[in-house]
Structures are given as structure tokens and as C-alpha cells.
């Protein structure tokens, strides 16, 4: 019997021989089952390696020293640092119109009616008033649609006004325009260059797949996207445009081809995303849908291919893995809305719709398009900052998304690395509190976290690749060799 006390941790039988322990700060340790049993029964000897590792990892303490508690407190504060900044990502839906008619698209409209679906100048101005009320030290404004380039004068107004106000207030602001690039012209490019705007686009894979997923008049989405990427690189710089992909039923067959298309185009990141259960996507579930299990099989195969490329010195990051790995391997916080507890809906990111309605998340906006406005926080024309960001609606969302209090999450070993998504769970089950055994959110995160840990433990090369993703730099040459 050794005289030591246990510090708070959660655990999971990792495989037949090993147990994973994770403390509240997200530090982890994998122990042989025998050591684990001895540990929890206070039978580890104080000179055993397992004892020393657990002590240094802040799973046990054996003196009155404040060090483990102070260090844990600091790490816990770091992990929750996203809370202090409050809402930093502000998403503007400058128009609901789009000239694409993607099967999975959540809410956009092919329409010529500008007045009905475009954000007005006054709405944009009032939304910016709210943006600049946010205490966040760094602001990020994302302009999306629909297709925001269909309403470029609003893009221009928002960027210019936000820039001017940020300069006056001495604040940092960053701009991202989410666009399919099909309508990009030289005037827009020179504006983006002048203002330092970053572009985010969609690329679903090789030409046939992409065009099948993303129909537009002329059936030329893929070639327009690629031409757009090249133009952006020429004018703004190679790293000023990133792409993400949406996985459809057709995509499931082609993980390798999709990844290779990204490599062929010299893209350095890929975000493998499942379909969202909203809007048109939900209605067309029979033609484009699939189970989470099928998605995860696709994800695994795509990730293998990505790792193969990395091992050969080709830098390509999978963005979701990068987020999770940052949460697992480092003591730092990440700002991804669905991977934090409480969820970032409203308190990390917020959406200003074209009509001035304010939503806690893009998913909340889509739900409203389907007729359920329960996650609408207010309207820029009718409500004040304090009633939108301090009102009951947002308070309820935050309270429902503290994973530490959600049954099934509270005692999960992965909790410190995971998050909560109340809007998603409401949309899929009618309840903001998830039913973990049947939750696809849980299925996805649990599987991917465990898969990443398994890969980390498996071999040194993969571990080094993962660390290079976390550092957001490509692997140094000597590490590939």
C-alpha cells in the first residue's frame, strides 16, 4: 500500500491489454491493465515507472505540494480559454441566392429576386454594430451565402466598414469569404488583395464527382473552381485559398481519388465533412444520405491515403483530425464551435442572416429555414446586443451544452477533447440533450478520437506527422527519412 491520492480522471478500456486515463486537463496516459488495477487500488509502489509517470502526468499526488494542483488549474484554464474571449467568429449571410443547385445544400435559393434574399445595407450596418460590441480581442468575419459574390457590393461594404471601425478601435479583424469561386472576377480579386481577405471554397473531388454533387448551369463547377483557385493563388498568394469537401453517397466510393485530387491541385488541407442533417439535405436523404458508420469507413480510408502522402513528404492536413489532435496532444484550446464544452454556438460564433435574424449557429439558421426558429437569438433591427447575447435563448443553449453535465458524456474518457452540439441533437432527435448510445455526433467523435489515438500509439512516423499538423507546418525533411 502506498500513501497516494488520486486526482480526477476518466478512463476507458483502450484494448484488451491497456487502459486509457485522461485527466480534466486532457493529459493522457495509457497503462497496462495490471498497472491500472494496482493504481486504483493504491497498490503501486512509489519507485515503479507507472507510479512516476502517473505522478508526473497529474493522475496521482503523494505530498502536500501545491504543484500538481496549480499546474492542473493552469492547464484547465488554458483549455477553457475560449470562454474568456466570447464571440469571435461572426458569420454574415450576405445573400441566400446561389447559381449552384447542390443536392446537399442546406438552404440556398436559385432566384433572381434580389430584394427578397439579399442582405440590405442597413442590416449589415446594424449587424456590424453587434460585431463590435463583442469583447473578443480578435474578430473574424466570415461572409457566406448562398453565394456571397452574387451580392458583392454588400461584401465590399461589410469589409470596408469593419476595417474602418477596427482601425478606430485598435482591434484585429480577419476576413474570410466562403465562395464557390465561379463568379470571381479581377475587380473582386484586387479588392480581396487590398483588404487581405482569405477565401474558402468547396471541392468535392475529381471532376465527375464534383460536378455530380454540385450542379450549375453549364455543368462546369469543377473547372470553374479550379480556375478560381489558380487565379486566387496568382493574385493573392498560394496560401490564401483553402478548400473543404462534403461527403455524399457517391463520394463514399472514392476516398483515395478525392484525396489525390487535393494533392494534384497542391492544396495543403482537406476537411472531410459528413452531410449535415438540415435543409435540402434532410429532404434528399434517400438519394444522398448514408449512415455514420459508412462515413467513418470512408473517413478512415481517406485518412490512410492522406498519411501515405505525408509520409512521402507531401504536406496535406485533414482539418478535423488537426482540431482533435491539437486538443489531445497540446495543452491549448481550439476555437471550433462543436468541439468545446459548453458549445461555441452563440458564445464562440454567431450568424447574421440576410434578413437581420441572428442565430446561434449556421445549423440554427437552417433549422429556422425549415420553420423552427427556436434557436433564433433575435433580430439586428429589433433587439439589443444584451438581449441577443445575454437573453434566455442563448443561455438555454449554453446550459444544455455543458458536456460535463450530459449523461454519457460526463464520465467519458474523451470528454476533455470532445464537445457538444445541442442544435444538431435537437435537429436530429428533437432534444438538445443527446441520447449518447444513438447519437451520430457521439459515434463520429468517439470513433475518430479513438482512431487517432490508436494511430498515434502505433508508429513514430504517424505521430510525427500528427505533430506537424498540430504545429501547422509541414514535416521537416529529416523526420520523413
Amino acid at each position: 500500500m502506498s500513501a497516494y491520492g488520486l486526482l480526477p480522471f476518466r478512463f476507458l478500456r483502450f484494448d484488451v491489454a491497456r487502459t486509457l486515463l485522461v485527466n480534466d486537463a486532457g493529459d493522457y496516459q495509457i497503462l497496462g491493465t495490471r498497472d491500472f488495477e494496482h493504481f486504483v487500488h493504491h497498490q503501486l509502489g512509489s519507485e515503479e515507472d507507472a507510479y512516476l509517470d502517473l505522478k508526473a502526468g497529474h493522475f496521482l499526488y503523494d505530498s502536500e505540494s501545491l504543484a500538481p494542483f496549480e499546474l492542473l488549474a493552469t492547464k484547465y484554464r488554458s483549455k477553457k480559454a475560449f470562454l474568456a474571449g466570447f464571440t469571435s467568429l461572426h458569420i454574415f449571410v450576405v445573400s441566400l441566392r446561389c447559381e449552384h443547385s447542390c443536392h446537399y445544400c442546406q438552404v440556398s435559393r436559385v432566384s433572381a429576386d434580389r430584394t427578397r434574399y439579399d442582405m440590405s445595407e442597413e442590416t449589415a450596418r446594424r449587424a456590424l454594430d453587434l460585431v463590435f460590441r463583442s469583447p473578443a480581442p480578435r474578430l473574424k468575419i466570415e461572409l457566406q451565402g448562398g453565394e456571397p459574390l452574387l451580392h458583392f457590393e454588400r461584401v465590399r461594404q461589410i469589409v470596408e466598414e469593419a476595417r474602418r471601425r477596427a482601425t478606430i478601435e485598435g482591434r484585429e479583424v480577419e476576413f474570410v469569404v466562403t465562395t464557390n469561386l465561379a463568379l470571381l472576377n479581377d475587380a473582386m480579386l484586387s479588392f480581396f488583395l487590398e483588404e487581405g481577405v482569405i477565401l474558402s471554397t468547396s471541392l468535392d473531388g475529381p471532376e465527375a464527382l464534383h460536378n455530380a454533387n454540385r450542379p450549375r448551369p453549364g455543368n462546369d463547377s469543377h473547372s470553374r473552381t479550379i480556375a478560381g483557385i489558380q487565379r486566387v493563388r496568382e493574385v493573392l498568394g498560394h496560401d490564401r485559398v483553402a478548400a473543404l469537401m462534403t461527403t455524399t453517397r457517391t463520394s463514399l466510393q472514392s476516398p483515395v481519388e478525392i484525396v489525390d485530387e487535393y494533392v494534384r491541385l497542391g492544396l495543403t488541407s482537406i476537411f472531410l465533412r459528413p452531410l449535415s442533417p438540415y435543409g435540402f439535405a434532410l429532404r434528399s436523404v434517400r438519394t444522398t444520405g448514408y449512415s455514420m458508420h459508412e462515413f467513418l469507413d470512408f473517413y478512415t480510408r481517406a485518412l490512410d491515403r492522406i498519411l501515405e502522402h505525408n509520409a512521402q513528404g507531401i504536406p496535406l492536413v485533414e482539418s478535423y483530425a488537426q482540431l482533435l489532435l491539437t486538443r489531445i496532444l497540446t495543452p491549448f484550446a481550439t476555437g471550433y464551435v462543436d468541439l468545446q464544452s459548453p458549445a461555441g454556438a452563440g458564445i464562440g460564433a454567431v450568424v447574421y442572416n440576410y434578413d437581420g435574424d441572428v442565430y446561434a449557429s449556421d445549423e440554427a439558421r437552417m433549422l429556422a429555414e425549415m420553420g423552427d426558429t427556436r434557436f433564433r437569438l433575435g433580430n439586428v433591427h429589433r433587439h439589443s446586443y444584451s438581449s441577443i447575447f445575454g437573453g434566455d435563448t442563448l443561455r438555454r443553449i449554453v446550459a444544455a451544452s455543458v458536456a460535463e453535465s450530459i449523461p454519457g458524456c460526463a464520465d467519458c474518457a474523451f470528454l476533455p477533447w470532445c464537445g457538444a452540439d445541442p442544435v444538431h441533437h435537437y435537429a436530429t432527435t428533437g432534444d438538445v440533450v443527446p441520447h449518447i448510445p444513438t447519437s451520430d455526433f457521439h459515434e463520429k467523435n468517439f470513433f475518430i478520437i479513438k482512431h487517432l489515438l490508436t494511430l498515434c500509439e502505433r508508429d513514430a512516423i504517424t505521430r510525427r506527422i500528427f505533430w506537424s499538423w498540430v504545429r501547422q507546418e509541414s514535416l521537416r525533411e529529416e523526420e520523413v527519412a
Partner: protein
Amino acid sequence: MRLHETAHVVGVDRLLIGRVARTPLLSGHHNALLLAENGVLPCDPSGYLGVIALGDPPQVSGTPIASGLRRLDYLDDGDVVAIHPNGFVHTLYRRNSRHNFILATERCNSLCLMCSQPPKEDDDSGRLEEHLRLVDLIDPATEELGITGGEPTLFRDGFLELIARCKRRLPTTSLHVLTNGRLFFYRSFAEKLGQIAHPDLVLGIPLYSDIDQRHDYIVQAQGAFEETVIGLQNLDRYDVRVEIRVVLHALSIPRLSRLAAFIARNSPFACHVALMGLEMFGLVHQHLNELWIDPAGYQQELLEAAGILRDAGMNVSIYNHQLCILDRRLWPLARRSISDWKNVYLPECNGCIAMGQCGGFFQSGTKIRSEYIHPLSPTETPTS
């Protein structure tokens, strides 16, 4: 080269600290020590703080003088020299060196097994005034200045005063302080240092183990680990930059990679981690049985620890290692850290192609050394 010497003094009734002047000055005479060579003064010394004479003394009256010096002939304009009433003359600062440091105090609250500068218990708190005066006299164009000990923070508020003085008088000089960091356990002390907001200050703080008892044993001070790791947190809280220094020996090597992971996880804010070979002087000789391990025997551990820190995005350097025993994959991290006037090479080094890049040995540390020292040839393949 000698940095101190005993002189014949006349009229030195208190400690004189002054700036050397080889040529007559237009202003600032009262802080200057006029240098006379072969009995010849460059000008009338009246109004000067004193005269330093190499060799025979010139005719001087009314100005303190130290004469008969032979070895301090390297003294040059801007160097700072102290003359004690007992005739002891020593150089505090050399303008053309990159290795100037202030030995703040010889007292220490730890007693590390491998201390290269064994502490003394005498109360030397009076030194603070000398240090403050030295800072006033140092050329503000100086790029780097070190503060070492003993434990400089034992001056408490005097330490803060010294840092504040450096900021005021030497605003563009990088300041590097060697401290065990223990007193920053007290948050208000860290806060006060942070409030000084020195523009270019780094505290180099040693951490020898991820396990408290092991660190405490190495530094021979109960509770030191707790104080140092919480001190590191407090310094980061108040935006004071820290460097973590790990000395490699038989007691720190076994958990080196675990220590690296501990640093990456708990002190990711450290701007630099230095992995340092044992310096073979001071107390180390008394504890050689416990401490000595041939560096050639710990390359795997070193490689792993450096890899963990580098993966986590930290800056890592390796100090005090000869290149012939260092794994080639670690060469990019090796720094020539030994001061220019302290390093030497051995007969075994003759013909080595890497001598230009290698830090060599401490002058006083060539007796106990790796058995694997050998000249590198152009064809040599990487070890291990």
C-alpha cells in the same frame, strides 16, 4: 588572460568602479579611470575618478592611482574596472566581449550536486550597489548582458531594482538571468518583475526532473521543484520570458524524455529549452560517482527528448557537447556555448574536420570526458 590582478594603490580609500579611458575625455571624467602606460599619462588626471597604470606609476597627485599592473594590458576604452582599497583590481565588463555577466551574489538557496560555482554563505548584499553602478557605466550599445550567481533573486527587491536599472540604462541590451526561479513561487514577486516590463529579458531556469523528489535531490533543497514549477507559471502569467535549462547526468538521463513531455505539457510558454552537458568544475567532482555518465551512452535518450520538444514546436538547443560524440541527427541543435576564453581542444582533436563548429571543452574540464572523443573525418558516417 587574467581578469584580475593586485596593484599598488595610493589614495584609494573606498571601492572605485570606473570606465577605462585610454584617451582624454571631453566629459564624464568623474566616472573614468585614466589609463597610463609606461609612466605616461594621456592628459592631466585631475577630475578623473582615478588612474590605472600599467607598469610603473606616472607622477600623480590628488587622484587615486593603482599601479604596477602587468597583465591587464588588454584594457580598452569603455571597459569597466573595480579598484579595491586593498589593491585588488578586477575587470567587471569588457566592451568588446559578447560574454559579459554580473556575478550578482555568491549566496544560493540551493546546493546543486553539479554546481560549477559553489555558493558561499557570506553576506554579500553590499554588492548590489556595485552592480547598479556597473550598469550605469556599461556601454548602452552592449548587445548582451548576463546576470548570474549564486542566486540573483536573493537580493529580493534589490534584484528588481537591478533589472529596472538595466531597462533604464541599457534599454537595447538583451538581458539573460540565471536563476533557480524558486522565489517566483511568490506571485507578487513575479508580478513586480513583470511590471518592470524589460523589453528583452529571459530568465534561464533549471528543471532536472518531472518528479519532485528527484529534482529536489539534485538541487539539494526540499520543496525546490514545487517552487520552481509554480514560479515558471507565475512568470508566464506576468509575461516574463523563461528558458528551461536541463543539465544531463546520470540522475537526469533516466527520465529525460518524460521530463521533455512534462515541459511541453506544463511549460509550453518557455521560449527555449537548453539540454546541457555536465560542466566539469565545482562541486561535480565531489559527486562524480553519482553524476557521471559518458555522453556517448545517452544519445538515444537525448534524441528522444529533443524530438518530443521539437514535435511540440519548442526551440531546443544542446550545449556543452563535442560533435564527435553527438548523434549526427542532433548536430543542427548543437550550439557553441562555451565562452571564447574558456574553451580548448585536446590532442585527440587534431585533424578533426569539425573543429571549427565544435564547442570543444572547458579549459578546466578536460580530465573527465567521454571515452569516445575522436577526430571526425570527411568520410565518417553518422553514429547510431
